[in-house]
């Protein structure tokens, strides 16, 4: 069994590591998190590090998935901002989109010039996504979309939204759901940022009132929306696919540095950090295995990604809870804006978004283990 071609990977890794030393950026004054990440995406793109595993015909490098893991690992180790998480959107177009859609949308997605958001969840369709009620009504060569979306990250900065709406009968559950590309400047869209428990406003509510969308903006056929959504959420459950390997690696490295800054690491901290290192590395190795499998089988991610999501959430929550305990009260007695507390709070959301932990465990039990319903 081979996880990768080690010599080529090693060369890639060392090239990337060198590049990162000179190119890592820091936020500018007043720059929002979203705009900072967008700028970093563009810097990475110009360096040639985005779309490693995308087909060359759409601007990618056509490399194996293993390179995405290395990108994640090296970005994490360098302490640079998270790797961009665009793989799953691209995959939706490659799998279901028309040639025209690919040519129209993929370049901007890849370069980071267009910022995309995702209109899936609704107030009454959270973990139970099939309960969504936003309607898309056909009207000649266009659709008229009306409904409410929630938990959309950075919608206020987005150029496009991948939106799920019901083209079939109300209450049809998984049937009659379609996916659309909606330009965010369309008339009838109202975006309201939600202040998160961290104090940041990453999430938004989106209200659609009779928003006109051209028929050619539908991805796939009517009713393909559910399959597109399932593929998308499966990607979102993978730690490399969403760039979280880099996020965790950077956090762990920073934590190790902070705790050992005076050269002495107390036994309990050494033990705790060692255990975190074990969990993080197991996650990394698991991700490499998954991507290798995906490549060997030339398959899209499926229910097995719920295993990855549980492992990823476990690292996220264990790491950030331990950080609060290891760093002590100083991260709590500061005024507004404690980065470690924000990361901790956000880690609590990790078992909620993208399908709650309970939903992931249902999927594992019923779809992977075949346990009876």
């Amino acid at each position, binding site marked *: 069994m081979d996880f990768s071609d080690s010599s080529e990977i090693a060369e890639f890794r060392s090239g990337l590591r060198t590049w990162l030393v000179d190119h890592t950026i820091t936020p500018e004054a007043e720059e929002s998190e979203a705009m900072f990440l967008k700028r970093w995406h563009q810097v990475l793109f110009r360096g040639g590090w985005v779309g490693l595993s995308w087909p060359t015909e759409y601007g990618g490098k056509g490399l194996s998935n293993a390179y995405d893991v290395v990108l994640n690992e090296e970005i994490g180790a360098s302490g640079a901002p998270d790797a961009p998480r665009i793989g799953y959107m691209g995959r939706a177009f490659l799998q279901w989109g028309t040639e025209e859609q690919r040519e129209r949308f993929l370049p901007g997605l890849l370069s980071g010039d267009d910022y995309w958001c995702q209109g899936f969840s609704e107030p009454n369709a959270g973990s139970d996504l099939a309960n969504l009620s936003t309607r898309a009504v056909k009207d000649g060569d266009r659709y008229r979309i009306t409904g409410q979306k929630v938990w959309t990250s950075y919608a206020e900065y987005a150029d496009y939204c991948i939106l799920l709406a019901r083209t079939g009968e109300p209450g049809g559950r998984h049937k009659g759901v379609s996916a659309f590309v909606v330009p965010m400047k369309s008339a009838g869209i109202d975006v309201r940022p939600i202040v998160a428990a961290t104090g940041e406003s990453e999430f938004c509510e989106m209200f659609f009132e009779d928003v006109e969308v051209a028929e050619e903006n539908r991805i796939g056929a009517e009713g393909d929306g559910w399959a597109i959504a399932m593929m998308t959420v499966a990607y979102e459950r993978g730690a490399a696919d969403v760039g979280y390997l880099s996020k965790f690696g950077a956090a762990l490295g920073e934590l190790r540095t902070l705790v050992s800054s005076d050269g002495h690491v107390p036994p309990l901290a050494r033990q705790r950090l060692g255990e975190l290192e074990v969990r993080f590395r197991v996650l990394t190795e698991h991700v490499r295995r998954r991507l290798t499998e995906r490549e060997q089988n030339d398959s899209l991610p499926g229910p097995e990604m719920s295993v990855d999501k549980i492992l990823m959430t476990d690292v996220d929550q264990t790491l950030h809870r331990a950080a609060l305990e290891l760093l002590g009260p100083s991260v*709590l007695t500061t005024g507004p804006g*404690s980065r470690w*507390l924000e990361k901790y*709070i*956000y880690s*609590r959301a990790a078992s909620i978004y993208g399908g709650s932990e*309970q939903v992931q465990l249902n999927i594992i039990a019923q779809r992977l283990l075949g346990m009876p319903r």
Partner: protein
Amino acid sequence: MTATLHESEEDVALRRTVADIAERCRSTRAAEVDDHTSCWGALVRSGLTELRGADDDGAPLATVGQVVIVVEEMARAVCGAPLVGTLLATELQRLADVDHVVPDEALTVLLDQELRGLAADDALAWDAGVPVTHAVGLDGENLVVRALEGATGSQDLSRPVAVPAGDAELVGGTLDADARTAFEAFAHVVLAADLLGASGAVLESAIEYAGQRVQFGQPIGTFQAVQHLCARAHVQVEAQRSAVLFAAWSLDSGQGDVVPAIVAKAYGASAAVEVVEKAVQVFGGVAITWEFPAHRHLRRVLLDAEVLGNGSALSGHLFDVVEGRSDGLQ
């Protein structure tokens, strides 16, 4: 939810009085504004800020058991009136046998930067919300008071910290090792009551929410996974309650055993955080919004857990006490 152990009529009335004040705090507080001056006023009018003042014989006006009732009920609303700081500062003065160093005012305590114990220099004042202007600390065995600069906020949104401004002034009282142990035991129980109130209340509202929120065509509270999450959290709340009640009784019965106080704080420090985390899971997305109060409970218990030693530190300390390697002082 009140303790299932019988409370005296007096205690029941006390709990009702405090619950009313807490309820007003909860219902009138806007998400953006953390102004608890009216809560503080109500607590003062009811005499609840003076519970650990000394009577003519130097004994406290109220039992630790009564203090626990008051602190738990106010913590249920994550109220920011500086009640706990004032109770601790008052207890400190009573034990040092000095009169109120700053008459008729809210007070709090000066702790070292790691919040591990009382301090005088390089200190910060915890629970320093309006109208706190001074804090009491310890310089060696000597009680000192220092004026404070304006509060600088903290991640426990309703309990800012403040930095001392003026010099430390001796106030004439001292605390020997026994008195210091007594103070720490009292403080541990008060903090454990705060952890109990903040975690217990958010769990109750999560259970209520689970009965209403529908997903997959039924209330999420019908799912066994959600039921078991709540059931485990309930066990942790009940165990916290048992530990707090027992520790309070131990101190009130005057046996001078500080172990139950350490146990209550050590257990509460980890259990309360886990309870609130479970409640957040039940609430789902709404709990991750600023508007919804769950994160206030989370922030409260995270900071409480660190004050005067977190669960990990106190567990190690308890081992030493039980092995006879320490006299109970940290």
